């Protein structure tokens, strides 16, 4: 099976991917809700900004993160002063990079599922005495849950594959920021690293495939849940 080094790489990748989506979830859901339901000036701009990591070269995203989180940077300075921590060259930084890159996909999936919630159910709930918050909690959120889950899975898969922003932002430190794609890249540079490239690539494909199948199943379940009402 897997060697100790391979396990370390896989475990780190999974940890980075999971922390990334858990961190991004509340932000992504709030943005998705705003874009699906609210009308406000500058909505188009927010929509564009959210999608930016999808189209900008990842290296650029990584470089922007580097500037922001450097000790002299806007966020880095604050993190250092308030908590005495830095995310540079740390796995937490890799998780931030993965989260930023996953954000557009997560917002898209969640926004679609919120938009698909039939407003007539929400109106019915209000005539039954439910205020806005209770309607959100008991109707909107549960009915959009399959889309939220699909967004999480997609974001997780995207985070697992993150390369450009990560290597630019937190470099390629074995055991700390060296996730699957970075490890594959390193192995490619080494003479005789072919076997490792093969093994890590197969693991990557398997993980991504599992995530996509899970996402597809969730979306199908969502389709059934809303049907036959």
């Amino acid at each position, binding site marked *: 099976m897997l060697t100790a080094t391979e396990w370390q790489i896989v475990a780190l990748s999974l940890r980075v991917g999971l922390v990334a989506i858990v961190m991004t979830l509340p932000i992504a859901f709030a943005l998705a809700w705003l874009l699906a339901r609210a009308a406000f000036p500058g909505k188009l701009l927010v929509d564009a900004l959210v999608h930016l990591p999808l189209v900008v070269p990842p290296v650029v995203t990584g470089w922007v993160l580097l500037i922001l989180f450097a000790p002299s940077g806007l966020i880095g300075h604050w993190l250092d002063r308030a908590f005495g921590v830095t995310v540079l060259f740390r796995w937490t930084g890799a998780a931030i990079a993965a989260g930023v890159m996953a954000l557009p996909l997560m917002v898209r999936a969640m926004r679609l599922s919120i938009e698909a919630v039939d407003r*007539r*159910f929400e*109106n*019915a*709930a*209000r*005539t*039954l*005495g*439910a*205020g806005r918050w209770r309607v959100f909690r*008991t*109707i909107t959120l*549960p*009915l959009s849950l399959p889309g939220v889950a699909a967004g999480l899975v997609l974001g997780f898969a995207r985070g697992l594959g993150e390369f450009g922003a990560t290597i630019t932002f937190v470099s390629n430190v074995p055991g700390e920021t060296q996730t699957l794609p970075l490890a594959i890249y390193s192995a490619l540079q080494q003479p005789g690293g072919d076997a490792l490239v093969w093994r890590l690539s197969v693991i990557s494909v398997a993980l991504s495939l599992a995530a996509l199948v899970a996402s597809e199943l969730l979306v199908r379940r969502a389709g059934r*849940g*809303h*049907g*036959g*009402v």
Partner: protein
Amino acid sequence: MVAFDLRLTKRIGETRIDFALTAGEGATVLFGPSGAGKTSVLNMIAGLLRPDAGHVRVSGETLFDADAGIDLPPERRRAGYVFQEPRLFPHLRVRDNLRYGAPGGRVEMAAIDFLGIGHLLDRWPRTLSGGEARRVTIGRALLGAPRFLLLDEPLSSLDRARREEILTAIEHIRDTARLPILMVTHDAGEAERIGTRIVSVE
């Protein structure tokens, strides 16, 4: 006593709704062809659609008054609204649909025994027939401790036998619950049978 005192003006696209009604106790039927804005009138009474001008008073209480700046949100109007399509929450079983609006979340089955839905409590809405879903919807509206009932074409898309069941149920509510009822229909027979009074809407 005046149950419904309504004066509503609303412009929706090209159509303009001007509606005034003063009606006493029992069941008032709004009778007219589809597309005359009857559903919009019910939505304005329930608080789901904001009138441009006018007022909504039910049993002496003002729910909306454009001049006085009063506009109670739907959750405080306590309308028992039976929509044209059942709108049962698809992710909740019948039991939880019934208790959604019930004070304290308690389902007082005795209050809705006449609907004959006691055996459906553990079912999911998507497994109900049209007639069953309709009866559950009526039960859900009644359990929400409403101050008045709004019924929007409660018999639409039901076969003959089911219509009779629902008609009997509505008569039962009219004669026992002492709630003011405002019902919308385009069927003269239904209007005759339920209406304490019938108001034609053009």
